[in-house]
């Protein structure tokens, strides 16, 4: 069960035990991490699960594409490692991943 660390914009850390196959968004919401509303439930419709992949992990994911890419292009505070976490499927190799949350979640 990989452990993913979510860091809120105010620095609060949440270590979450994620299930392989679920999305990082769901791992966060299931664990009650604030700052990831995930309002649309993972349909890639609302852009409320934006997070920054820690630099150390940035190269290990395929880049955002399609709907996710288009939505990210227009979210507030976009950075090169931005992802919508509803589209990040947790793999067994993600133990130790850190995701930082933006100040404004939209």
């Amino acid at each position, binding site marked *: 069960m990989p452990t993913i660390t979510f860091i809120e914009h105010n620095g609060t850390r949440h270590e979450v035990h994620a299930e392989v196959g*679920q999305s990082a968004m*769901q791992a966060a*919401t*299931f*664990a*009650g991490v*604030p700052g990831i*509303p995930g*309002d*649309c*439930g*993972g*349909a*890639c*419709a*609302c*852009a409320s699960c934006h997070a920054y992949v820690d630099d150390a992990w940035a190269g290990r994911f395929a880049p955002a594409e399609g*709907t996710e890419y*288009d*939505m990210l*292009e*227009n*979210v507030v505070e976009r950075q090169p490692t931005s992802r919508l976490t509803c589209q990040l499927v947790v793999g067994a190799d993600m133990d130790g991943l850190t995701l930082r949350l933006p100040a404004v979640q*939209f």
Partner: protein
Amino acid sequence: MSLDSVVIVGAGHGGVQVAIALRQEGFGGRIVLVNDEPGLPYQRPPLSKAYLLGKINATAMLFRPETFYVDQRIELVHDRVAAIDRQNRRVMLDSGSALDFGHLVLATGAHNRPLNVPGSTLGGIFGIKTKADADLLSPLVKQARNVVVIGAGFIGLEFAAVAAAEGAAVEVLELGDRPMARAVSPQMSELFRAAHQGWGVKFNFRTGLAELEGEDGKVSAVTTSDGRRLPAELVVYGIGVIPNVQLALEAGLDIDNGIRVNSSLLTSDPHISALGDVAAFPCVQNGENLTRLESVQNAVDQGKLIAARLVGKPAPYTALPWFWTDQGNLKLQIAGLSIGADNYVTLGDAAAQQLSVLCFRGEELIAVESCNRPGDHVFARKILARPPALTPAAAAAPDFDLKAWEAANRP
């Protein structure tokens, strides 16, 4: 006296959001969530698409796992509220027990408007509202060769796309003259009409349902209002919903289409709030007219607002409405309300199934519909959430781009 307990009736998006947000806001009192469906509270949008297709499982639809409710001290009660005793601030449950409340939140949602033609009680006829509906429907969709969909709204068309993808011959009956006529512009309707036809879906506009025929208790055919007989082993209807106001009505709360609430989402009883599909609220985006919206966004944002008020942070409800629907490869996202739109500017290319329709009422931008242009949707929500307003003339300029406009006009 500070608030010591909140009882929430209904465990859909709105009810669950109130419970979660109360704890996030630091509320320390008792929270009881009364759920009249079995199992843990779940999200409904996938029922007519991803869940039906088997793309996601039941666990993925849950709002939260059971441990979350335990950890957060949110009591899940599987029961139905039989009555509200306003005088004693207590709800009576079907099981015979009762719950005292400091504040009551009615998140009772809505139920499907039923078919009312002969044969409506035959087997093989479904509305899609609950996980139980979807669980019964899912295997039938894979087997059915002839499917008739009643109503070309979001739910009907989401299902039509699923059924067509599963290889069924799909006929859609619709009283109006275009798909999703109450929700989207003619231009967007046309894109979806063409797309569905491309998937093999056949539309019957200006056509109602006259009768359902059966064999051995199961539907076998439908007769249309113009007298045609269409074979059907499976009929799915989505002809609107009716708000679940019965409890509130019997308790003497003001009802006006839904449970009438003020801009703080309080009912006519200051100890009772209502939200989501069941609540008729003065909508800023609809000229302060009492409005009932059936959407995830509305339920979630109203839930957050009520929770904040209950911990002493009141605010009027002004959130921008937004909606989405997924049909086949099309993702339609709508920001704002297009009620009264009389002028449209389109961006993109309908033939390529990438289109945004900017909906104006006079000079005022009131809504943006985006099909497979999710970036436009994100910008539209920013633009619509605050002035200055985008005019039709500016939007119609050659090479107009929402992103560039938003950047140039950011306050």
